[in-house]
């Protein structure tokens, strides 16, 4: 039994279960939207524009007569997709960078960490604008922009934890067993940093959802006609007085998803973070 799976009472982590349930709902909806939505989310029907909720359109229609429920469902898929890919990108680059810097020490690695500070100081929004100027708008640019922003986040979490881990006796023992620094990083440091990374990834996912919404809102993310929560908000802006529902639906979707992921992250941290866990005697 590893520390990761050590049983602990679920009652002690209510936020974990709330967060997990909320996240599961969003993921499920996103998956369903890939194969089925009540209506085609991109189909415009001008005769049906700005309808209120009805049996046919549960959440009504927008100014082009598109089904709001279907758009929100499809938007979930886009949001999660962009966010997942971006976080995976950030981890794939950030974790090895942090590990490398912590294990090596010295000038080169100082430079690597300062470099990541530089990226950190550079807002994802600016990166996204820059990428659009270079390659034109699109979901891929949003992923890369958010992903780049995540590299230093994961590099830092890994670096900090690895620095303290590598002074522990069991790492010295491994060194005395003749293992190379690379092997020690993979065998001891990474598994012990993993819980922290999982927690951080959950939190970064929620930030990624927000960032994706913001980029789409400004037209830097997924392009029409693909539906997205951010652009739904943008479209609804001028119709706030007429149909506030059009802004409320994507807004609540974002709130629900981000809240769910944050609760999940908090719960996971309480459960997994070794610093919060009592030392077992």
């Amino acid at each position, binding site marked *: *039994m*590893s*520390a*990761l799976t050590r049983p602990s009472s679920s009652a002690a982590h209510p936020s974990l279960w709330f967060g997990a349930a909320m996240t599961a709902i969003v993921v499920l909806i996103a998956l369903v939207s890939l194969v089925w939505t009540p209506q085609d989310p991109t189909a415009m029907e001008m005769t049906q524009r700005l309808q209120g909720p009805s049996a046919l359109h549960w959440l009504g229609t927008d100014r082009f007569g598109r089904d709001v429920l279907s758009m929100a469902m499809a938007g979930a898929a886009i949001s999660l997709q962009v966010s997942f890919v971006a976080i995976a990108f950030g981890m794939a680059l950030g974790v090895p960078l942090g590990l490398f810097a912590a294990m090596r020490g010295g000038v080169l690695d100082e430079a690597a960490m300062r470099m990541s500070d530089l990226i950190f100081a550079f807002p994802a929004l600016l990166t996204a604008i820059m990428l659009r100027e270079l390659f034109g708008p699109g979901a891929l640019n949003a992923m890369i922009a958010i992903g780049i922003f995540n590299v230093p986040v994961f590099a830092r979490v890994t670096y900090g934890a690895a620095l303290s881990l590598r002074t*522990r*006796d*069991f790492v*010295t*023992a*491994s*060194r*005395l*067993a*003749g*293992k190379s620094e690379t092997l020690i990083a993979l*065998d*001891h440091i990474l*598994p*012990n940093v993993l819980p922290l990374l999982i927690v951080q990834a959950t939190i970064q996912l929620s930030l990624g959802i927000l960032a994706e919404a913001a980029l789409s809102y400004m037209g830097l993310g997924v392009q029409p006609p693909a539906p997205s929560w951010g652009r739904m908000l943008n479209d609804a802006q001028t119709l706030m007085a007429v149909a506030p529902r059009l802004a409320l639906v994507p807004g609540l979707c974002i709130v629900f998803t981000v809240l769910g992921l944050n609760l999940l992250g908090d719960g996971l941290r309480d459960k997994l973070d*070794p610093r919060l866990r009592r*030392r*077992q*005697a």
Partner: protein
Amino acid sequence: MTLLVLDDLVATLDGAALLRGVNLRVAQGEIVGLVGESGSGKSMTALAIMQLLPERTASTGQILFGGRDLTQTAEAAMCAIRGRDIGLIFQEPMTALNPLKTVGDQIAESFMLHEGLAYAEALDKTRAAMDRVGLADIPATRYPHELSGGQRQRIVIAMAIACRPKLIIADEPTSALDVTTQAQILDLLRSITRESGAALLLISHDLAVVASMADRIAVMKDGRIVEEGATRSFFGAMRDPYAHALYEASVHRPARQPMMNKTAPFFVAENCTRLYRKPSLFRADPQPLRAVDHVSLALSPGESVGLVGESGSGKSTLARALLGLDPLDQGTLTLDGVVLDPARKQDRLRLRRKVQLVFQDPYSSFDPRRTIGWSMTEALGHLTEPVSESDKARRVAALLEQVGLAPDFAGRFPHEMSGGQRQRAAIARALMTDPELIVLDEPVSALDVSIRARILDLLADLQAQHSVTYLFITHDLTLLRAVTDRTLVMQKGKIVEEGPTARLLDEPQHPYTQALVAASPDLPAHVAGLQSDV
């Protein structure tokens, strides 16, 4: 007159018994020593007296302090009693002090809180309190990190005695300190209680410390006091088997064959020097600290050598250098006639195959995410030829058996084992590559007394079986006498004295060795002295 009476004190937390009926009396001006191993309930007793037991603890019984039942005292009134009538001294002075406030302000707080003094008056009294604890030349405007461990503990004592309490509770007050500092702090505690007439409840795991301090000794086990008596007659009249076992374990000397005919050394370190430079980008630190300064030593097969010194003496740095963990700035390591350069990977591997280490802290020496079996076999294939999985399992089982653990421990995780079991596993791991030398870095100082005795027996047995050489790093002179043939005394990076352990401890030549010997509590000698007095 009786100052404190604990009458059938019972405390339970979530169904687990913390205290199972503690009866104890402390007279005015008396020093009572409360001894026990971890989990015996000695710290819980102190917390109960202060009415600071963990939340949700249910307790029954009486705590009469000066005739007043503290269990019936309201929290507001308790706040006035704590600090004013009962002073508390903790084990770790660094965490007991607020790092962001000057030590003077922290002592002054007691006066302002309990005696209603204005800041200026409180500071005057603070100065006096610091003088009393022997810190006359330390300005009150210092911060905790600017003081040494011993000085910090003096500050904590000054805070505890600031308002001249009737009772001082000291919970392991010297366990985090070096031997000579421990002796000074114990002297201070003794003189302060004598001079102020306060009673002292001294809580410790160390029977030697308690025997040298207390008027009366109480031994705790499983939330009960199992043996109690005046120190003078205590050791001659122990009836409880546990108290007896605790004493036996405290003075335990494992049966071992002293090295008689020494053969030629197989491991020689010559002129080893290790410098610590302040990191600087542009030029080398002109005055580096000489953590290890021209140290030479030679170890023969099968002998047991002690390396003693206080924290900061360089003994751990030397050990790391001998293990090839840190590079040497000067000097050579010779193993079996071959000069090795730890900077070269091949030499490093060669060194490690023959030189292994057992750590002080059994809690951090195993990766919490790996099984014991996995950790034990880490070296196989790296220091040795590749070994098949079934061979690995066989070797793990054989070594576990040798250190007294069942083979199924191979599949356990460190948190599923006790400290003593982990230390056994750590010893088994060190033996995996059939080393010629095992460096033991305070191998028993984190363990309870009774477990410590069994680990020492185990080490003696294994040495006889494997004819391995031990380099014992310790600050405990009693231990040194029990388990080593020869001792090196280290101070400020240099070896200042060396010789056969018995001679070195009986007739220390160097002033530093003399100070160490004088400061070390020696239980057998103390008990012998007591019994000749009776």
